[in-house]
């Protein structure tokens, strides 16, 4: 069993993939499978899937608007929380404050809700961007339920 010192990662996975729309589903399913190592409820797993989907979709549409690029997604289990870092090396965001506003989108066909969903569905969300160099989103989420209630995947109903 892992020891938990200050903020040591007990486990991590990193996904590196092309910025293609068809990889968005792959990314959220993979992260959901990894997140299942913590005692998240099914509803929380759904929220993590939406947040992952939004962050990766943004890299695909906004980060690399005219070309294919590499998206990097790292997930860590840190002190019982899930930490997600989603990174592209694309065009970046010129005006971060504007980007964060609900319903703001540089694409008239889009709703401008991606960052709002990431903030609502995760406990913490930070976004950093350098125009011309890329964007990184870091999100964390902690299971609300106590570990005890949800370890049934690990525990047996020993009913003798």
């Amino acid at each position, binding site marked *: 069993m892992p020891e938990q010192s200050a903020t040591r990662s007990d486990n991590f996975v990193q996904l590196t993939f092309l910025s293609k*729309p*068809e990889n*968005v*589903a792959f990314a*959220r399913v993979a992260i959901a499978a990894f997140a299942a190592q913590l005692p998240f409820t*099914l*509803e929380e797993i*759904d*929220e993590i*899937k*939406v947040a992952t*989907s*939004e962050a990766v*979709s943004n890299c*695909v*549409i906004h980060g690399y608007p005219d070309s294919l690029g590499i998206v990097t997604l790292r997930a860590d289990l840190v002190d019982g929380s899930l930490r997600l870092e989603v990174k592209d090396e694309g065009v970046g965001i010129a005006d971060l404050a504007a980007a964060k506003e609900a319903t703001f989108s540089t694409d008239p*066909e*889009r*709703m401008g*809700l*991606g960052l*709002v*969903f990431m903030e*609502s569905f995760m406990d913490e969300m930070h976004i950093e961007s350098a125009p011309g160099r890329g964007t990184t989103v870091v999100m964390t989420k902690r299971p609300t339920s106590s570990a005890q209630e949800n370890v049934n995947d690990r525990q047996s109903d020993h009913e003798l």
Partner: protein
Amino acid sequence: MKLQLEKIGRTLVARISGELDLESAPLFREKIDEALLEYEMINRLVLNLAEVDFVDSSGLGVILGRYKKIRSRMGSMFLVNVNPSVAKVFELSGLFKIIPAKDSEQEAIQSS
């Protein structure tokens, strides 16, 4: 994403299954818009989401886009069978306030 379309009078019922996201949204848009173009008299759009297990903001975006389209011809739109795992994004986005949810296709077809 899988899409089944049925025309009932002046209503277009779209039964969707699977996931509505960045990848599948364009196909959804295309198929609905094709049908709306083909049948100019359609003035009611009913989306049956019973079999949809994932929707994100890209999915909401095409739904809102279809709503604007049907409104531009003075029509109406309804959502049916939104299951709990996707209801949250509809609530948070405010889409439920714009596009009413009904309990069944029948009910949606009969409302005005």
